[in-house]
């Protein structure tokens, strides 16, 4: 009578570590809001939420956040693009470097240990906090 629920393995192949829907909702919306508000990718908010609330490894959280960011930043660009605020020359110059850098960074993420990734991301958050307050 009580054991009506299907066994866990049925859910497991959908989302690794089957993250509760409430966490998915909160992470997506919160990450998106800060992305649009601050003009950042939103990973700063999403990665800690995926690790601490969703139980993902640091490595998977970083990679999943990048995938989410493609859609989130596109939406934010459309809003800012309407406002005619994009400088295409600066964007092109930055992209020349960042597309090459992204491949190197992705390979580093694939190889780094969990402890090192946590240390790197923790340090990044402290730097980010300073930049956020200093930034005029």
């Amino acid at each position, binding site marked *: 009578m009580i054991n009506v629920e299907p066994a866990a393995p049925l859910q497991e192949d959908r989302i690794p570590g089957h993250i509760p829907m409430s966490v998915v909702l909160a992470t997506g919306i919160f990450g998106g809001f800060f992305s649009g508000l601050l003009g950042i990718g939103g990973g700063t908010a999403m990665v800690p939420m995926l690790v601490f609330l969703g139980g993902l490894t640091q490595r998977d959280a970083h*990679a999943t956040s990048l995938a989410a960011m493609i859609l989130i930043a596109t939406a934010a660009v459309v809003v800012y693009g309407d406002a005619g605020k994009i400088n295409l020359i600066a964007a092109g110059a930055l992209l020349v470097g960042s597309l090459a850098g992204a491949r190197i960074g992705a390979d580093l993420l694939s190889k780094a240990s969990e402890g090192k990734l946590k240390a790197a991301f923790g340090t990044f958050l402290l730097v980010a906090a300073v930049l956020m307050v200093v930034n005029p």
Partner: protein
Amino acid sequence: MDPALVIFLALFGGLTGMLSALLGVGGGIFMVPALALIAGFDQQEAQATSLLVIVPTAAVATWTLRANAIGDIRLGSRLGLLGILGAVAGAAAALALSGELLRYAFALLLVVVGVRLLIDSRSSTARLQTPEAGHPYPE
């Protein structure tokens, strides 16, 4: 635009692109202050330009990581679709108000989470050194 500035931005982009893919963030936290302080952009122009750079950078990183079977693209897409709702609200809010207080509140949150992660990183390094099954107390 000054050619020296264009070259600087390309080199700076290389650094932020690498950090972006390694850390799973967009890199806007580095690009926005650089564009505002060094290139002299106003805040909204800096943010809009930075967001445009983030899209292809994150796409290349995701593509590379997928080849290495890291991350969950389906979960990422779900987060992204939900995030669009949040991003439109956040971007509209940024265009309408200064968002000063929210920035300070978010900075404080980052310090708390950053310290927590640094503490966790030490314990997860320790765990790697002594596999959790054995605990072969040397004494």
